[in-house]
């Protein structure tokens, strides 16, 4: 047994219980999966192991000795390395500089010995068969290479236990395969790997054992070969993940949005959307699937007015929105559930009431020309809290003190309470508990049945499959596929479109003319 974490308890200062009596054991030379939904507490557990967070209760036993890990440095010294989901690299520095950062070889006792640094970096890359130009600046290399740099960084520091946090989330299939080969080599050379993921097939493929977490608790550790993917998913979400809604057939009406020849560059000048055109009709849900970073965010930002530097045109109900402000676009009865609720979906330090009216305080019902109608706003807040099942003490509670699911309900309540004709839902259930997620999905379907036009961007394939009436796949700023009969598409097929292995030359049902 290389490592044991026993009865770990972690409460964050906002009162969220992230880990509750979690235990995990690692054997030497295994790839151990840590499996769970977003927000299940996997990351917190690993932060405790890596010394980023200190547990409120529990013990860590490393190589048979009880130990306290006080900082990442401490963890590294004890042979633990971590590859974070968001790369921990300094973009303006070279690969070699990133690898040696913190353990720089010196010359004259004072300066960095850069020649030595480069040769050492090249040496370790060679030893583990990583093909990397160590003199390149990190900001100029592709994602797959960045991840290799991350792994090399950990190995350079002598890591025996390697934590990989959702390493395949940003990789192409080829890069993933390559990664798996390398991970198996590392395992065979005696390294222990913790593989955090929620992709069951990948776990089946390379992991020996799996510990499954659900809402902060451990659901047990299993030999991967003895447990089926259905069983794993049941443990993960608490029941079989078959999202079946008694969905009425869609009854699409007039076109409410037209996107024509849309092209967008981000502020580094990289082309994120290329010549994209599609229509959206009332009474339908257009699902957009795709690996993150393939232009989904840029598309949503352009439609909702957050990004104004695009080429091409976007019409909402026959209005060209190129010159329209965000307010004017919202006044065309558009609601928007943003991708990241804490960054742009709410103000954590303001209370629930103040978060519920940011899109409609100018409505005559809630304000005169100058003054807010405080009484009416309070009444309406209480109604919305009840209607959207927001669990809170009162509308005076700060939004930042609520759980993720409840914050999301506040946002949904705000966006839906204006009775929108068009809803842009970007990852509407990400990191939200099962109950809240189902509630939000049902609401989306209700709006669709009322004739609302909905765009649903989601990384949760089950969600896009079960809600969408049409399904588009985004790959490198274009639609690589468009499916008008969602039930006819298999998950495997969709995956191939998402990864750019397949591409429809002629797409039907994109534009209605």
């Amino acid at each position: 047994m290389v490592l044991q974490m026993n009865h770990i308890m972690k409460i964050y200062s906002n009162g969220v219980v992230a880990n509750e009596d979690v235990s995990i054991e690692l054997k030497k030379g295994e790839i151990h999966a840590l499996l769970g939904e977003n927000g299940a507490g996997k990351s917190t557990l690993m932060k405790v192991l890596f010394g980023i967070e200190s547990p409120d209760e529990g013990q860590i036993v490393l190589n048979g000795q009880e130990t306290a890990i006080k900082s990442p440095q401490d963890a590294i010294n004890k042979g633990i390395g971590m590859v974070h989901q968001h790369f921990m690299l300094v973009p303006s520095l070279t690969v070699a500089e990133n690898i040696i950062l913190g353990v720089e070889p010196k010359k004259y006792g004072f300066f960095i010995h850069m020649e030595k640094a480069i040769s050492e970096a090249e040496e370790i890359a060679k030893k583990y068969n990583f093909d990397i130009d160590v003199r390149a600046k990190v900001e100029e290399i592709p994602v797959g290479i960045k991840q290799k740099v991350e792994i090399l960084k950990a190995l350079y520091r002598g890591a025996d236990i390697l934590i990989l946090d959702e390493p395949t989330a940003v990789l192409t299939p080829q890069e993933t395969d390559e990664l798996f080969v390398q991970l198996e080599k590392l395992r065979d050379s005696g390294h222990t790997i913790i593989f955090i993921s929620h992709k069951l097939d990948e776990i089946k493929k390379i992991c020996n054992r799996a510990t499954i977490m659900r809402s902060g608790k451990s659901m047990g550790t299993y030999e991967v070969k003895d447990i089926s993917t259905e069983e794993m998913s049941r443990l993960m979400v608490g029941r079989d993940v078959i999202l079946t809604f008694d969905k009425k057939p869609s009854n699409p009406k007039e076109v409410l949005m037209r996107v024509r020849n849309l092209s967008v560059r981000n502020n580094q000048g990289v082309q994120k959307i290329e010549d994209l055109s599609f229509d959206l009709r009332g009474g339908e849900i257009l699902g957009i699937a795709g690996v993150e970073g393939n232009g989904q965010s840029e598309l949503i930002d352009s439609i909702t007015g957050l990004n104004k530097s695009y080429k091409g045109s976007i019409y909402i109900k026959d209005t060209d929105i190129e010159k329209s402000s965000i307010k004017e676009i919202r006044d065309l009865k558009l609601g928007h559930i943003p991708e990241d609720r804490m960054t742009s979906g709410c103000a954590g330090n303001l209370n629930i009431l103040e978060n519920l009216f940011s899109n409609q305080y100018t409505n005559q019902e809630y304000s005169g020309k100058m003054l807010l109608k405080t009484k009416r706003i309070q009444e309406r807040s209480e109604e919305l809290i009840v209607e959207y099942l927001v669990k809170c003490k009162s509308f005076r509670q700060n939004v930042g003190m609520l759980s993720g699911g409840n914050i999301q309900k506040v946002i949904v309540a705000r966006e839906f309470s204006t009775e929108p004709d068009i809803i842009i839902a970007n990852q509407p259930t990400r990191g939200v508990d099962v109950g809240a997620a189902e509630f939000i999905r049902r609401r989306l379907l209700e709006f669709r049945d009322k004739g609302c036009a909905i765009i649903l961007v989601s990384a949760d394939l089950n969600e896009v499959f079960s809600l969408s009436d049409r399904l588009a796949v985004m790959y490198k700023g274009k639609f690589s596929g468009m499916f008008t009969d969602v039930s006819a598409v298999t998950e495997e097929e969709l995956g191939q479109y998402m990864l750019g292995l397949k591409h429809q030359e002629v797409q039907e049902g994109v534009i209605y003319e």
Partner: protein
Amino acid sequence: MNSAKRFDMFRMVFSVLIALLISFVIIFFVSDEPVTAIVTLITGPFKSKRSMGNVIESMVPLIFTGTGVCIMFSANQINLATEGGFHLGGLVAAAVALKLGLPAGLSPIVAISLAAVAGAVFCAIPALMKIKTNSPELVSSLMINYISLWLCTFLLMHFLQDPSVGSASYKLPPESELPTLIKGTNIHLGLLIALVVAVFGYVFLYKTRTGYELRLTGENENFARYSGINIVKVILISQMVGGVIAGIGGSVELLSPIYSRFSWVSLLGYGWDAIIICTLAKKNPLYTPLAALFLAYLRTGASIMARYTDVTLEIVQITQGIIILLVVAEQFLSGMKHRMIAREARASLKDEGVA
């Protein structure tokens, strides 16, 4: 009140006490008669009607600049030009009083109104620079404070100067003076104007559409933008309203019975004092009179102490500095706060278990 707010109150009082304690220790080091000095500092303001009046008078400029800063900081516009706006307001008021020859009643109204306009225009400069060129308002506002100082000094020396007294204007005419409210003190109409402004500031921030826009932007600019709020308008309005209040503050102070001439040839520091008022009032203008009362009391005590003992007035700036440091320090006493919140979370876990 929830536990977090209760804790914040406790921490603020505790911070003020620590700041006072440190100041007392400093007094022990620099003074030959520390006990007398400290006793004078604390009891001095109560010794006479006049000194009690001093406390109330010195609240006035603090309420103005404090309210102005509350509004700008609520929108997260770190514009420190209140200092220069206040200064400019004083100069404009002096110029109106001396040059226009308006009758009593009308003269202060015109003076204060023009000072308000001047303050607005002045504080709009960093705002416009931010909007047009993306310059940080923090740095540009620091620069224009000095520009305001030298511009006002220039105008004073070349247009308003009374050659018989040196660097001061001619005596202000009685028509321009704000009336005293309580005989035997200098407590003047400005106090009422200040209180009205504080209430106005509260209503503006918490009861109006624009105030709501300001606060949303201040707490999370991305969220405000996403909600459809015009950020450019918020940047401009918040800083201009702050400037209006600073300008009014400067003019009211100058037209009060405390001054008979315009003689400000260095920055007075009310802009910096405003930061501590805003900090203590937790950005809510309604609490600025309370915070101003505390600071004015400390100031008056210190100036009496400076008169009768060997400790100088400037000790107050050290006290103020420590108060800001501790009140704004999120982690100060955070261990206690975490234990309090963790205890509540555990308790609610138990409740759910039972239910």
